[in-house]
């Protein structure tokens, strides 16, 4: 890697809730005592199983009291249970929360949809991003509260993002992990894909026939320090991400993506393969995953395979939480000298060429690896290390609210080398022309116009959101081979058409039969996975779901990972595609998105190149996220929150000096009758034009992605066109930049400088 991380991420707290119970001891007991006959998997009881009868599934015991209000979705309550536990010994709140979540409020939304409830207020916790937001507010974190939604690798990716927040010096303490509650969407979805073993999962077994879907939440509290101090549990040494860019669900047959992620994780941790004492496999128990993963593991470790096991035979597969639950398993291994057994195994599949641990064993472990792979070909691998004999060592933890003085390594400037957007007005040119004239672009571009440049075969099986994303990719990179290798996608609500159609069909069919294609397409990261396949992009592939700030969250993750590329890689491997998109769905959008209003959707994409410095006058503007914090929840505190945002940006005078115009993305759901707008205008005291973008672009969670594309174009053009100047005529930016301010649940600021 191109930087030597001097700031390390030590784990100082952990929280976990699984079908085996709450806390580390319960998990260790399950790891030691489970067998194929007696394990925490039970026939489904959380909801009606359908005509096939209940399959074995992992369910958090019903007698376990979960914290949080009774009207919260199960996911949020599981997450809160893990968060409270992880924070129990901590004196200070975390600076950020990063969670892997896929279905978010779906367990509750399904009940409400089945009951025909139409009140949007009841669905307010539907969005995947609300889990991290609720957790952050509950533990006193001012944000950011970030959510990664890359299907079954979500929590692994979230932990990698958290690690980079620490290393970049942006945060002292990060609470990170994942949460997913079992719901109908996933239970029936995986059944319809024939990926559920009716006998309960048997990872790596010759007769394995699929997974057991499960649920749970797990979180680690990461602490920035240069050296360990007494009381730390272990260290997060590194993480690696990759994308198969091969198929929406099936892994690359040679395990290429898995190999790349593990290789990157080792390199990131600065360890050779011989230093790994144990690998906790993704090991879902499906024929394809276990075969591809075994190939990758054998390739990586060659003739010296460390002990390996999948612990999904104990806990099942808790989907987005898997990477965090299994990170906790790794902590159990490191701190209790325990090699966990591959429960569920009767006869190892000889074709895999692995020798999984048949029984738990005692061994002193120094460094272990954990794998998490997901739909969309999104892969993550983590390396965790033991911290021993820390007594008496120097403590280098910073004080309350402190920030590390200097960034530990080189920071990258992200240069905009291309941009594209889509709105109701049309593609980039049409949108720009209307926007520059101060005219509304809001609406729904007809499907035929969205896909006009795409070959029909590319759009097959794709509904509205993936089409928007593929169209943005096509506009930006018509030559797929020359496109960026890393993709950072933000979406507030994900593929709503696929989600709706799957649930609608599922609920209307007495046999619970519904389209597997819709299920596969319903995961938030499916569009970015499709784009990766189209571009052959095998680098990191992240999907962020943070409500109205999903695009900003994707940009933050891109900044954090900008330099996370092997030095031997080509300059093009460093380039990034950062985009945001949301679709309008006539049934679900009015329920899930509190903004309401006239139907509108679209998205925007930036092609970014990391450069050593951002000297002005180079080709194209640069982009940087300058602020991302949670807005105060109580209306009476919002003005103070906005003043704090302006202060974080250097105060009103600095804003006037640096920026020729402000673009403000204020979602309708947060307007409070104009209160928030007035409070911001007052706090910013900005002398130049302040453009209210939502009335122009429409109400959808990724409107700020479109605004970002327009901001980059404004800066490149050096002036604010007459149509946007509120009657002042064209306003010259005078060599200054444009600041895109987001005023939703997160208060954000994205800098575009010439």
């Amino acid at each position, binding site marked *: 890697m191109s930087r030597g991380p001097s700031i390390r991420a030590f784990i100082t707290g952990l929280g976990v809730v699984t079908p085996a119970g709450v806390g580390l001891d319960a998990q260790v007991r399950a790891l030691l005592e489970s067998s194929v006959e007696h394990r925490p998997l039970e026939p489904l009881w959380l909801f009606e199983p359908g005509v096939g009868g209940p399959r074995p599934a992992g369910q958090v015991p019903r007698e376990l009291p979960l914290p949080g209000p009774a009207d919260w979705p199960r996911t949020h309550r599981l997450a809160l249970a893990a968060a409270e536990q992880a924070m129990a010994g901590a004196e200070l709140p975390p600076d950020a929360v990063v969670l892997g979540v896929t279905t978010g409020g779906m367990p509750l939304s399904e009940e409400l949809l089945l009951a025909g409830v139409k009140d949007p207020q009841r669905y307010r916790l539907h969005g995947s991003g609300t889990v991290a937001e609720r957790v952050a507010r509950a533990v006193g974190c001012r944000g950011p509260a970030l959510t990664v939604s890359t299907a079954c690798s979500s929590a692994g990716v979230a932990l990698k993002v958290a690690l980079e927040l620490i290393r970049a010096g942006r945060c002292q303490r990060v609470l990170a992990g994942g949460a997913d509650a079992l719901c109908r969407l996933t239970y029936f979805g995986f059944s*319809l*894909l*024939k990926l559920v073993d009716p006998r309960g999962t048997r990872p790596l077994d010759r007769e394995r026939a699929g997974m057991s879907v499960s649920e749970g939440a797990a979180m680690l509290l990461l602490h920035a320090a240069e050296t360990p101090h007494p009381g730390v549990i272990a260290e997060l040494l590194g993480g690696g991400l990759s994308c198969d860019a091969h*198929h*929406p*669900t*099936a892994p690359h047959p040679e395990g290429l993506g898995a190999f790349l992620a593990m290789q990157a994780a080792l390199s990131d941790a600065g360890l050779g393969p011989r230093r790994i004492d144990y690998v906790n496999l993704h090991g879902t128990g499906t024929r394809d995953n276990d075969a591809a993963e075994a190939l990758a593991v054998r390739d990586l470790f060659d003739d010296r395979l460390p002990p390996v096991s999948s612990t999904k035979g104990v806990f099942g597969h808790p989907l987005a939480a898997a990477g965090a639950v299994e990170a906790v398993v790794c902590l159990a291994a490191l701190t209790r000298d325990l090699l966990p057994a591959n429960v569920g195994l009767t006869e190892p599949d000889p074709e895999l060429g692995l020798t999984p641990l048949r029984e738990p064993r005692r061994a002193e472990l120094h460094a272990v690896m954990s794998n998490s792979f997901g739909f969309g070909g999104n892969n993550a691998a983590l390396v965790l290390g033991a911290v021993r004999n820390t007594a008496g060592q120097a403590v280098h933890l910073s004080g309350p609210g402190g920030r590390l003085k200097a960034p530990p390594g080189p920071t990258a400037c992200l240069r905009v080398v291309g941009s594209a957007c889509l709105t109701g007005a049309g593609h980039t040119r049409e949108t720009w022309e209307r926007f520059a004239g101060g005219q509304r672009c809001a609406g729904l571009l007809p499907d035929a116009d969205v896909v006009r440049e795409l070959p*029909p*075969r590319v759009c*097959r*099986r794709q509904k509205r959101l993936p089409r928007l994303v593929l169209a943005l990719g096509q506009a930006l990179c018509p030559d797929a081979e020359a496109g960026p290798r890393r993709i950072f996608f933000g979406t507030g609500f994900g593929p709503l058409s696929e989600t709706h159609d799957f649930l609608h069909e599922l609920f209307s*069919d007495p*046999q619970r*039969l*519904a*389209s*597997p*294609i819709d299920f*596969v397409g319903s995961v938030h990261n499916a569009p970015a996975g499709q784009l990766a396949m189209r571009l052959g992009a095998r680098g990191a592939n992240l999907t962020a779901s943070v409500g109205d700030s999903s695009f900003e969250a994707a940009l933050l993750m891109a900044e954090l990972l900008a330099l996370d590329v092997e030095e031997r890689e080509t300059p093009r491997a460093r380039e990034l595609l950062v985009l945001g998109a949301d679709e309008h769905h006539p049934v679900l959008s009015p329920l899930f998105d509190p903004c309401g209003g006239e139907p509108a959707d679209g998205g925007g994409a930036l092609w970014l190149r990391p450069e050593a410095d951002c000297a002005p006058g180079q080709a194209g503007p640069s982009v940087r996220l300058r602020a991302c914090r949670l807005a105060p929840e109580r209306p009476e505190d919002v003005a103070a929150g906005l003043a704090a945002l302006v202060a974080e940006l250097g105060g009103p005078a600095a804003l006037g000096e640096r920026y020729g115009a402000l673009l403000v993305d204020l979602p309708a759901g947060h307007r409070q009758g104009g209160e928030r707008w007035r409070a911001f205008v007052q706090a910013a005291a900005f002398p130049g034009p302040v453009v209210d973008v939502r009335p122009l672009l429409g109400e959808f969670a990724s409107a700020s992605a479109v605004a970002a594309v327009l901001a980059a174009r404004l800066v490149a053009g050096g002036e604010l066109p007459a149509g946007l100047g509120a009657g002042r005529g064209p306003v010259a930016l005078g060599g200054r930049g444009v600041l895109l301010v987001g005023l939703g649940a997160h208060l954000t600021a994205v800098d575009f400088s010439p």
Partner: protein
Amino acid sequence: MDELRAELKRRIVETLDLRDVDPDSIPDDAPLFGEGLGLDSIDVLELVVMLEKDYGIRIDNKELGRRVMTSVASLADYIAENRRSSGAPG
């Protein structure tokens, strides 16, 4: 049987959103997956659900699926056989 084959071709094109394929142009014996229509494992599963919903045919394991869905002809044969044996109207 010809009628069932023609109907299946239409249903396949519809179910799998093969807009650029004329149903009548699909040869009875051409392979449906891989080289032929370029379909993949998710398409197989989509057809499995369609067959269960529209024809009451259950295909529960991969081997059977692979055998039955070799071509339109093999699919039609399997449906005709199993409809007969179950006494369902054909």
